[in-house]
Every structure is written in C-alpha cells, then in structure tokens.
C-alpha cells in the first residue's frame, strides 16, 4: 500500500518520521501548524515518551526537575494533533525508490514523505564500558542511571571536557562529589570556545574544586571485581573514581542508512558524517533529514554544516515542513544557538565560533564573566559570538552575524549608535 497523492495535494501526504526526539516532534508540530492534514507516523526506538535533551545534563542530573518536566508531548497532546507515535520501534532500513521503510520486525511502511530525525549516537571508549560505574549520557535512562549511581559514589571521573562533560562536572560538584575532569586538549571546550574562554571555564571549575587533568588521554579504567575504581591517564597516574562518565562526543545515527541511496557526508569533511541535504533539508526523492543527524547545505558558508544544537532541530523542522507541503520557505533566518550552564555561569553562543577564529572581547570583561566576545574569520567577518551576563548586548551582536557584518563595520555601527544615543 502506498499513500501516493496527486500533485497539488501536498497537504494530504502521508509523512513518516524516524526519530521521536525534539526534531521529530517539532516536524510533526510544524506540519500541523502549516495545515497538513495527511497521516503522520513517528517511530522512536526509546521506550520513553518524547523528551527534551538539554535538561538531562543539567536539571535532571541535578535532581531539580523530575523527568516529566522534560517531556516534549503527552500521548493526549499527540492524539489531539492526530499524530501516531510508535515507541520502542527501530526502523531497520529505507528503500528510497519504493518509498517505504522496513521496521526491525520486518514490517514495511509506505510514505509519501520521509523525515529522518535519528540524531546522534554516543561515541565510546574501546575499553571500560562493561564495568559497573562507567556511564555515558545521551538518553533519559543514561541520565537517571548516572544520577542514581552518584547517590552512592564519592569520586566521579569525567572523561571528555566538552559541553556535556563540563556541565556534568559542575552538577556533580554541586552535589558534593569529588570530580576529576580529563581531556587530551589543554582547556575545556577548547575546539569551540577557543583559548581565552576555555581558560575562563578552566578557572571556574578550579575555583569550584574540580581536579583538572587537561592535556591527558585515558589509558585504561581500573576495576575491582567489575566495579570501576579509577581512571589511569596516559602518563601512568591513576585518579580514583568509583563512577566515570565517558563524554567523548557523538556521531550521526546513520548506520541503518548504509544499505540505502540516502547520501552521507564523509566523517572528516564538512557535514561530519551527517546526511547530505540541500538548503531545505532534502536528501533524496521525498526524503528529508533534520536535527543533529542532518548536514544541510549552507549557502552563505558554501559548505555542508551539521550542528548538534537544540534550536537547529526546531529550525530544520519548520523549514522542511514547508518544503514538504510545497509552501514558500520560512522567512525567519536565524543563527545557530547553544547554551551551557555551569555553576552560576550561563554561557550563550550564537553563530559558529571555533578555536580557529580570531577572538575579540567586544563588550564587558572576561575576568568578570560578564562579556560578549566576537569570533571572526580571515576576512574579519563575525561568524560567532560567545557571552555571559549581557543579554541585550548579545542580541545586538547576534544581528551582526545575521547581517554578515565585519567586526570593523560592526564596531563603527555601535560607535555611531552610542554617539547618537
């Protein structure tokens, strides 16, 4: 059975969404908001009702929110929107030419439009994960397991000082645990925030009593009768740890697509192994990809970009819903956004800052942790900002990214605005 619809009747298309995370749910919302009336089926492999991920390493781990507060939609809300959600179901493959997906059970499901929103899968170490006390953090079950384990553990080793690792280290300190934060790079979050902001974050963790082991890889995880007892660094020292979080990144969940004609970007090229999409999220005939798994063509940067940001999921969802329904593209052009809460620092970033950019503090003072920093490319164009404690100013700088402004021009604009004020 196929749900083939005639041209001009895009609003009746049968849409299958693979992935019940924020991107998948937002896509269903966006379709209905744009008056789509056709069937919507969502397949999610987890057992939980759809939930939001950013709170996992923050409020859920800290125990200040119950898991229900992170829930994206109740079954009543989905039913009211006439969206059919199948949980604990893994989609095994897709046949683009035949317009159908095959579930792990062997059942085949036809579609008029397919939206792939399978997100990312955690990377793991080649050792240690079989031990009791060694955790990863991607799902709600992961967060609850770490939270539960931390109730009885004394010393947490966090392997990987990216956002996730840094946030978990902060939460664990606030819960009174001894924390060691380990990373082969010299500073936390260094690849994204660069040396200056990275140093500030390192100082913040030091100030809160975190033992920083930066510039070190991990050689092995020690155990006693299957329970983790310590993490051995590449210089041979062992730091005590009766709990460990491995937070060494994630990769696109695309293994199920290797047998299909859905195109992927190479892991080390722009797009970082994500599904290769055009600037509307279209990957193949009647196939779209959104959220963390999707590498959309960015016409401004002239390359594929895959961004693991919560807000990108919403933007992709709205844009692809309009494309599926053959409506005019969504007008609102936005910039990538991420936030990271560590202790009382609320770090906010717009655009795509990176360690390779030139760094300029343009408002406030880094030492006060109240600042806006601009990250510029080789032609002085502002490609990203990171700031804290100055939200009005951050919004102004965000607009400069949208306008493709150079730093020189932005500073002149700011000066003349201040002179006329």
């Amino acid at each position, binding site marked *: 059975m196929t749900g083939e619809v005639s041209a001009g009747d895009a609003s009746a298309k049968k849409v299958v969404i693979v992935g019940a995370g924020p991107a998948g749910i937002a896509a269903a919302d966006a379709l209905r908001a744009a008056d789509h009336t056709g069937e919507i089926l969502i397949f999610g492999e987890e057992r939980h009702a759809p939930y939001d991920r950013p709170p996992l390493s923050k409020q859920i781990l800290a125990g200040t929110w119950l898991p229900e507060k992170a829930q994206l939609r109740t079954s009543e809300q989905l039913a009211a929107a006439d969206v059919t959600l199948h949980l604990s179901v893994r989609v095994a493959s897709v046949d683009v030419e035949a317009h159908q997906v095959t579930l792990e059970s062997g059942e085949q499901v036809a579609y008029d439009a397919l939206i792939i929103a399978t997100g990312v899968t955690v990377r793991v170490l080649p050792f240690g994960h079989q031990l009791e006390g060694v955790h990863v953090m991607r799902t709600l079950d992961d967060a609850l397991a770490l939270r539960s384990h931390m109730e009885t553990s004394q010393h947490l080793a966090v392997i990987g000082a990216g956002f996730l690792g840094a946030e978990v280290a902060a939460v664990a300190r606030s819960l009174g645990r001894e924390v060691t934060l380990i990373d082969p790079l010299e500073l936390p979050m260094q690849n994204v925030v660069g040396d200056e902001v990275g140093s500030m974050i390192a100082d913040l963790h030091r100030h809160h009593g975190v033992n920083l082991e930066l510039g070190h890889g991990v050689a092995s995880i020690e155990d006693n009768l299957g329970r983790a007892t310590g993490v051995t660094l590449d210089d041979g020292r062992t730091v005590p740890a009766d709990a460990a979080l491995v937070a060494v990144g994630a990769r696109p969940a695309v293994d199920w697509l290797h047998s299909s004609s859905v195109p992927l970007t190479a892991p080390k090229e722009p797009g970082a192994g994500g599904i290769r999409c055009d600037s509307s999220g279209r990957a193949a005939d009647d196939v779209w990809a959104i959220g963390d798994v999707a590498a959309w063509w960015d016409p401004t940067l002239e390359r594929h970009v895959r961004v693991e940001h919560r*807000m990108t999921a919403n933007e992709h969802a709205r844009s692809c819903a309009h494309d599926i329904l053959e409506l005019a593209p969504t007008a609102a052009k936005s910039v990538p956004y991420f936030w990271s809460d560590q202790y009382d620092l609320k770090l906010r970033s717009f655009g795509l800052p990176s360690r390779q950019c030139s760094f300029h503090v343009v408002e406030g003072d880094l030492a006060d942790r109240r600042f806006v920093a601009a990250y510029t490319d080789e032609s002085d164009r502002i490609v990203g900002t990171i700031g804290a404690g100055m939200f009005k100013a951050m919004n102004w700088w965000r607009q400069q990214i949208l306008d493709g402004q150079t730093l020189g021009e932005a500073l002149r604009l700011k000066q003349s605005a201040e002179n006329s004020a």
Partner: protein
Amino acid sequence: MRIELDQDACVGSGNCVVSAPDVFDQRDDDGIAFLLEENPSAERESAVKEAEAMCPALAIRVHKK
C-alpha cells in the same frame, strides 16, 4: 490569546524577543524572558506562534481563548 511563559525552563535564547519584540523581553543579566503582554491582540498571533515553535526550551505556551 493568552501566553504562558515558564521562566524556570527558559534558557535565555532571546528567540521570542526577536520573533515578537512587543510581547516578550528578557532580563539583561541572566537572559530570562518575561512578558510585556500576557494577552496580546489577535494580530500578534503569527509572531507569538513563531516564538512558541522556535523556543529551544519549550518554555512558551500559547492558549487560544
């Protein structure tokens, strides 16, 4: 139309301020959004709906009266 804003969930993205600047504003020090208008007029609906859809923290709910 009535707007419900969960300040405990708000992450200070400022999206709502960009989408509907006459309905939302945000505190300068922590970015938490607040309402300028709890019951905006009907012509604000599309802007407010956009703010609801784009909020990365799902902190905005628009209730139709």
